[in-house]
């Protein structure tokens, strides 16, 4: 197992820059999720580590050794593909054994390792089948087995669960996490699903448009999103974002928008003063907002757009200053569409962003 270090990695396809000067370090034994919307450069980044693509600039080091110019076969990494990429004309046993065979592992040892991997993944009874005779979940296991079997320095996984149905996905998610803990492996895991990233990873690398937006633990990414993009991307339902103007009013700092104003607490006032101009964006998670059915001081007037009960929680969609907020409610509460409501902000959990740079404004 080894550390993986990205140093100002750039990848261009022709004139299109798919990965823009990305730097981060995955520590030995860490599970890092590379997460971002479709087309943001996740697969490209992963393929750069694997050596399936050539870097345009920068360097990648694995265990301190620069691997930029090595062939994929010499990098000692394993990869699980989204479509599993099992060899269709080989049996499961041959699929699992292939990486070992190519490395000229003696036959006895090869068989032993294949059997061990099969036992670990509970696919011993499938060893003599061909991939097309397996279910999606079973193929997924074989793909994982082919990666496990040769004990590589780094595991790369490109959306390995996205072809499974929802139930199996949750189950495999737990299993993968368990494998990581048991094997103490370095894993770089690509997903577009922020929930998958949050639940599985030690650290999240959030990407957008080829740029690494934030690299931190899931808790920190959730609680201190580095910018508006991360704030909107991580968490479900997404964070509510509301553009506002900061007005200083004889010592009191207020955020104001179309037909509403909110006195900021000293903590948030200090953040607001750090903004490059007077334009900021307020960010509030659904759970940090309280819905009142009667006017109350320090609240913003709004109107219910629609109500979505999910069983555990009810989500109220609320129209505020030309935007729609999602607020979670106790399912016992009876709220109707078009009802006038008042929103109270939990100011200790309010996020402020500079509207120009879109960067987080840290609290005072």
């Amino acid at each position, binding site marked *: 197992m080894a550390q993986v270090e990205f140093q100002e990695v750039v990848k261009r396809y022709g004139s299109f820059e798919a990965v823009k000067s990305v730097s981060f370090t995955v520590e030995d034994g860490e599970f890092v999720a590379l997460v971002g919307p479709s087309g943001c450069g996740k697969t490209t980044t992963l*393929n750069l580590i694997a050596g399936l693509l050539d870097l345009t600039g920068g360097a990648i080091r694995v265990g301190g050794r620069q691997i930029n110019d090595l062939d994929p076969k010499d990098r000692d990494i394993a990869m699980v593909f989204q479509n599993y*990429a099992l060899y*269709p004309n080989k049996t499961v046993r041959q699929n699992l054994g292939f990486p070992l065979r*190519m490395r000229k592992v003696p036959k006895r040892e090869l068989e032993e390792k294949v059997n061990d991997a099969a036992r670990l993944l509970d696919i011993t009874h499938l060893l003599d089948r061909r991939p097309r005779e397996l279910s999606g979940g079973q193929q997924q296991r074989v793909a994982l087995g082919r990666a496990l079997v040769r004990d590589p320095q780094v595991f790369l996984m490109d959306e390995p669960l996205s072809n499974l149905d929802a139930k199996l996905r949750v189950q495999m998610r737990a299993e993968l996490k368990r494998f990581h803990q048991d094997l103490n492996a370095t894993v770089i895991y690509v997903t577009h699903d922020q929930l998958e990233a949050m639940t599985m990873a030690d650290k999240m690398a959030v990407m957008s448009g080829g740029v690494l937006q934030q690299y931190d633990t899931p808790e920190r990414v959730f609680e201190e999103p580095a910018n508006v993009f991360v704030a909107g991307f991580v968490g479900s339902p997404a964070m509510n974002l509301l553009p506002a103007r900061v007005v200083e009013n004889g010592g009191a700092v207020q955020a104001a928008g179309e037909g509403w104003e909110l006195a900021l607490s000293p903590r948030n006032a200090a953040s607001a003063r750090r903004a490059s101009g007077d334009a900021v964006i307020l960010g509030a998670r659904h759970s940090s907002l309280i819905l009142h059915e009667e006017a109350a001081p320090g609240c913003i007037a709004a109107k219910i757009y629609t109500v979505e009960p999910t069983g555990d929680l009810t989500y109220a969609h609320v129209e505020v200053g030309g935007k729609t907020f999602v607020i979670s409610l106790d399912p016992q509460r009876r709220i109707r569409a078009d009802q006038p409501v008042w929103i109270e902000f939990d100011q200790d959990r309010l996020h402020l962003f500079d509207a120009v740079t879109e960067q987080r404004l840290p609290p005072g």
Partner: protein
Amino acid sequence: MDKRRITRWHVFGWIFLVFLLIYAVTPLLWMLITSFKSQFAALQYPPDLYPKNPTTEQYVRLLSPQNDVGRQFLRYLLNSIMVSTVTTILGVAVAVPAAYAFSRFRFPGRKALFFSVLFRNMFPAVVFLMPLFIMMRWMGLVNTYSSLVITYLTFGLPLSIWLLKGFYDNIPVQLEQAARIDGCTRFQAFYLIVMPLSAPGIIATAIYSFITAWNEYVYALTFLNDDQKLTLPVGLQRFFTEYATNWPGLMAASFIMSVPVVAMFLILQKYFVRALTEGAVKA
């Protein structure tokens, strides 16, 4: 679903197929029957539906190097085998990497090259007869096997490349990537993983090249005139117009000539079916 309608279509289908079968098999069968008749019986009117005194005399004569006719026939057979085999081997050797490159790599002029390859197919082969003959004479290739091999390759390759490219397009690139990560070089990934998956396509292509070369007549007639170099289709024609028309002999020779074609079609069919059902390499 309406069961009755399905069975009615089944019946129509069967009748259609039976007619098609009769249409395809009757000439072949008549050829085979005639080839076992004596020369006299073959000319009888009304003809016998089956040989009364079947004789393998024609086959023995054609296939034995002991007599002039046999020597000549075997010579033509050998020429045809040689030209067709070389065409097939070279064709596959060029088509496989070319199709793979067209499918996998983006290089400048890729589109233009691909369409120029197809562009040739817009014209019937005869259009190129004179220009190619002049070219061959200029290169000193008239009356050589090479002239035929080159011509057949020119005409056969576009379709072979087109056909094979379809196969490679359907093989996910991730399979090669997985193979390279699992320890293959680029070439090994192709050779060990991709090529076996495209085997049905390669075999179909090979058989197609072989049969086209085997049956070709016009170019062989134009480019070759040395009696020792003729291929079967041209040779047969000369052979049997030189002597009095020997129908059973001609039929026996034609039948021998059609044996590889029929055999290959049987294999081809098996591989086409496999290619269609098993070609499901998509994830």
